């Protein structure tokens, strides 16, 4: 691929997402593309795949070519895989979904099915062709998306943060699948990702874009990392061997705030429980992290502890200090009573957004409590400042970046000062800068006496905040030392 002075501007924006880009990638190269969010990395990948470019979407200048042709006319030469595994399966069955791209290329039927089998083998997805796509795990779904692209035999494989939403097992699955596929096909690779270590063994060139979308550094991985260490870290890139410095987990904890006894959990009130017989205690002034494999019921447990789902058996009990005169079972409290007692931060911030502006979003809880005075305004201002959202106070929450949305969802929960906080995968898909901020903020809350319960896969998060680490497995909850999880 080749770019000469290429630029792109979204309709309705003043600033060019990318401008004056000069970059040549030779066939067979494996490139890791880095840069701060907003540097136009995703835009560049989409443009190479020929899926931006309609006049109503924006305008471009300069020249961009794949195989010497305009990308839109070379569709199929470049295959794009996106971040969200949910968004990419087009058809209901695995085989049909992989065949979809080949059909669009107009290949004869006899040629399609051998390609489908070959692509599924290349990504190591060993399920029957009629397996429902909806029943695949996150890692499997990303491998399916890669297979769908590989079956089209693209010369150029474009991956846009393909592992950002996956657990460690899923990340390894996807990376290995890409490696195997590249070895087989000799295709060129361009991958965008914040966690550099994932792709380190696979790429042979690193290109760093700056905030304006121009090339800041370009070369062999080791050389680029050495030369641009500070700039990359500032841009939110996770560099190898530079885990963020945090005070780390520590023992301790005050009085019990929440406990579960013989707890059975499940999403459907009349459905079968996912887990039964769970015992646990959540102390004040300590951070408890719950880990475990995908699908084991961690989120369901978090929602049950948060008083949002009713237990299917056994009970969740709040201490008298937390219940303050209410019945001990959190799921029986009213929604507004929950606000000042237990706050829950959801995995998908978009599900929780209800305000028209960022400021409005933080005010939602306070308004539900009929708390509108000057003290409420001061509280909102304080949170906007603390989570660096002041400049966005009047923006629509949906237009925020992923990291900003996450900070907003935390601020909105903190507004009503609940002494217990439940967080579901708070660091999923976050760049390094947001991660460091979030961990610092949560540690501060624990120091002030809050009880924290988080569900997380993130080994760095466990190291920083796993004062108490519980592993949820088939046989229930098991207490374990933080080092064992991090290792």
């Amino acid at each position: 691929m080749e770019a000469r002075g290429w630029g792109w501007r979204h309709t309705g924006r003043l600033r060019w997402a990318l401008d004056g880009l000069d970059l040549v990638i030779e066939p067979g190269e494996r490139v890791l593309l880095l840069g701060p969010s907003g540097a136009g990395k995703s835009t560049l990948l989409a443009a190479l795949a020929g899926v931006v470019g309609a006049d109503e979407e924006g305008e471009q200048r300069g020249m961009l070519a794949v195989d010497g042709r305009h990308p839109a006319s070379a569709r199929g030469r470049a295959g794009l895989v996106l971040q969200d595994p949910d968004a990419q399966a087009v058809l209901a069955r695995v085989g049909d979904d992989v065949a979809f791209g080949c059909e669009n290329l107009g290949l004869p039927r006899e040629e399609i099915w051998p390609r489908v089998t070959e692509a599924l083998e290349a990504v190591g997805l060993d399920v029957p062709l009629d397996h429902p796509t909806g029943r695949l795990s996150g890692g499997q779904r990303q491998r399916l998306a890669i297979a769908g692209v590989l079956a089209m035999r693209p010369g150029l494989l474009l991956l846009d943060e393909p592992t950002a939403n996956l657990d460690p097992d899923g990340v390894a699955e996807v990376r290995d699948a890409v490696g195997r596929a590249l070895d087989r096909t000799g295709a060129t690779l361009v991958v965008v990702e914040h966690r550099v270590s994932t792709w380190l063994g696979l790429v042979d060139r690193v290109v760093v874009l700056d905030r304006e979308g121009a090339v800041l550094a370009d070369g062999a991985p080791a050389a680029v990392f050495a030369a641009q260490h500070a700039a990359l870290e500032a841009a939110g890139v996770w560099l190898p061997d530079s885990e963020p410095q945090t005070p780390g987990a520590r023992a301790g904890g005050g009085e019990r705030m929440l406990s579960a006894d013989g707890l059975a959990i499940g999403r459907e009130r009349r459905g079968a429980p996912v887990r039964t017989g769970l015992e646990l205690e959540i102390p004040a002034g300590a951070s408890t992290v719950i880990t475990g494999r995908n699908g084991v019921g961690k989120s369901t447990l978090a929602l049950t502890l948060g008083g949002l789902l009713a237990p299917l058996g056994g009970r969740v009990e709040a201490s008298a200090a937390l219940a303050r005169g209410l019945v001990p079972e959190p799921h029986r409290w009213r929604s507004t009573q929950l606000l000042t007692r237990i706050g829950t931060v959801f995995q998908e911030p978009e599900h929780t957004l209800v305000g028209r502006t960022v400021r409005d979003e933080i005010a939602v809880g306070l308004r539900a409590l009929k708390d509108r005075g000057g003290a409420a305004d001061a509280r909102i201002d304080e949170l906007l400042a603390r989570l660096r959202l002041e400049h966005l106070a009047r923006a629509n929450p949906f237009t925020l970046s992923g990291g900003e949305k996450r900070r907003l969802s935390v601020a909105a929960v903190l507004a009503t000062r609940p002494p217990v906080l439940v967080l579901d995968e708070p660091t999923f898909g976050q760049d390094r800068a947001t991660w460091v901020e979030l961990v610092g903020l949560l540690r501060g809350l624990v120091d002030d006496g809050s009880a924290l319960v988080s569900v997380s896969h993130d080994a760095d998060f466990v190291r920083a905040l796993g004062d108490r680490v519980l592993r949820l497995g088939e046989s229930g909850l098991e207490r374990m030392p933080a080092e064992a999880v991090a290792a």
Partner: protein
Amino acid sequence: MRLVARTNPVTRLAAAIVVTTPLLLTLDWSASTVILAFELALLFAAGMKLGFLLRSTWPLLIAAPLAGVGMLLYGAPSGREYASFWLAHITSGSIGLAVAVSLRALAIGIPSIVLFRGVDATELADGLAQRVRLPADFVLGTLAAQRLVGLLISDWRQMSLARRARGLGDAWALKRFAGMSFALLVLAIRRGTKLATAMEARGFGGGGARTWARPSVFGARDAWLVAIAAVVAATGLGLDLAFGTVHWVWA
């Protein structure tokens, strides 16, 4: 049932249209009765169990008499009047209409439900695009969109939990519903846009000729199914004409 099981979904659609056409053209109860009786006889002869019929059509079994009640009270009055209050008039004419409407709902609904039970959406799309030659972009776009429904259901659940967590769970149910519907619409558009990009990235809508990985075939069973549907429809309409009881929609 086995006759239906391995037919092309397009054939099932065609058979349902053929059977129900006479019912859409007439308003009297005799055609409905004949066709409904014929349908039930055929379905039971083909091995359908009563339990299966009740399980799969129970909403219809409730709705059909309700539709009849409306006609009974407010249908165009004619003939002898049996009772009346305010706007409602129960007449011999409206009784006839009520019976006809209930029977018609059953005669149209039962074969449609039985024929479409277990139809695979992908197979139907294949058939509509390859056999009926509907535009591929349209058919596949619709097919992909219906897959989003499952995602939106889980979005809705997550959103109701989130609203409780945010202190909005105590609000009046209707108000909460309105707010969530709007939020779901926003999410649906975002999901739709992402899916469209993913489809385009795999060469969809590129303008070139498209092929189909799965053949959509018609066999002898398909011919039989449509033939039987035609016989049922023709018998119903024929007897109606022979008895002189026919009441056309436009008459």
